[in-house]
């Protein structure tokens, strides 16, 4: 419902910056987790973020507000695209720009109390990448994002060591491909 959407946007837009460690697991229905990855993320609203996966393989997804870079060190490849095209509404985009990413493309349901609140998002257009997304807040802090896709796979991102309103040097959102990296536009 509309009020729930507003409350979710207010929660996400409450502070200018957010940093946290995260773990991410994707698993099919009933299967054990296929691959668990860990990393650190920084968000500076609007639209600046660094989503840095460290384990088991490095990947950097960095937006300076205009250009989004995806850098895979073991592939020695970096791709770039305008941030606005980032239509898949990745979790980083939702955290960085809730106002535009959580517009009417989603119906929002809220459940829980002040200690633990869950927001469940259902995309209104059926070829959305995720057919369900749940954001969990504990004591007002983002704790988890759970994404279900239409192949029955669930991706669970758990946040820890969450800090809000911290000073972040803008240079952290500037990415320059290291020498020897093949650079392409994102297909």
């Amino acid at each position, binding site marked *: 419902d509309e009020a729930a959407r507003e409350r979710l946007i207010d929660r996400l837009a409450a502070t200018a910056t957010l940093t946290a460690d995260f773990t*991410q697991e*994707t698993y099919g229905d009933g299967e054990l987790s*296929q*691959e668990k990855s860990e990393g650190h993320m920084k968000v500076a609203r609007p639209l600046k973020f660094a989503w840095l996966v460290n*384990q*088991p*393989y490095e*990947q950097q*997804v960095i937006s300076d507000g205009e250009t989004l870079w*995806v850098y*895979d060190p*073991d*592939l*020695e*490849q970096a*791709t770039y695209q305008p941030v606005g095209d980032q239509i*898949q509404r*990745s*979790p980083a985009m939702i955290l960085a720009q809730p106002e535009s990413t959580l517009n009417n493309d989603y119906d929002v349901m809220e459940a829980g109390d002040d200690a633990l609140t869950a927001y469940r998002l259902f995309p209104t257009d059926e*070829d959305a*990448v*995720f057919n369900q997304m749940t954001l969990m807040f504990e004591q007002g802090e983002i704790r988890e994002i759970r*994404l279900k*896709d*239409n*192949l029955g*796979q669930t*991706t669970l991102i758990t946040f820890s060591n969450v800090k809000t309103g911290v000073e972040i040097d803008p240079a952290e959102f500037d990415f320059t491909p290291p020498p020897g990296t*093949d650079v*392409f*536009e*994102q*297909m």
Partner: protein
Amino acid sequence: CANFGPQPDGSELTEHWSFTGKMAVRNTNEASSFNVEWQQMAQAFEIELSGPLGQGAAQIKGQPGFVTMQRGNDVWQAGSLSELADQVADLQLPLDHLQYWVRAKPFPGSRAELLRAEDSGQVTTIRQSGWEVTYPSYYGEGATALPRRIDFERDDRSGRLVIRNWMTES
């Protein structure tokens, strides 16, 4: 732990093998990359291609003469991987050849030229079906070591596959 321990040797590869990796596909100025999980059980195979958040996941299942691919609610069927690639616009990948190239072997279906390194005997290049396949790194020094990275190129299309973990059916 990050790396799943020492990687098996090609000589240990039986009819059942699998790997996980990451693949980039490119044309002259655009690229996209996705995770790859490939399971081979003799002639049958299951390949899963997925984006960083598992999105856009495509599952390809097949055995000789019958291949299906599911992505979202769409399903394709074909008689072979190459026929499937013709049907699916953004799947312009020589998957049937890759089934052999990943093990530094030529695709048995057509003529191939193989170059090997003098010292290690490892395959450095395979030229086949208009593709130039190169092997920048292997897991180990021996002639039967398994590739860690494969680059393949034809006209303005190219791809790069990094194999992160080989698993053999012991």
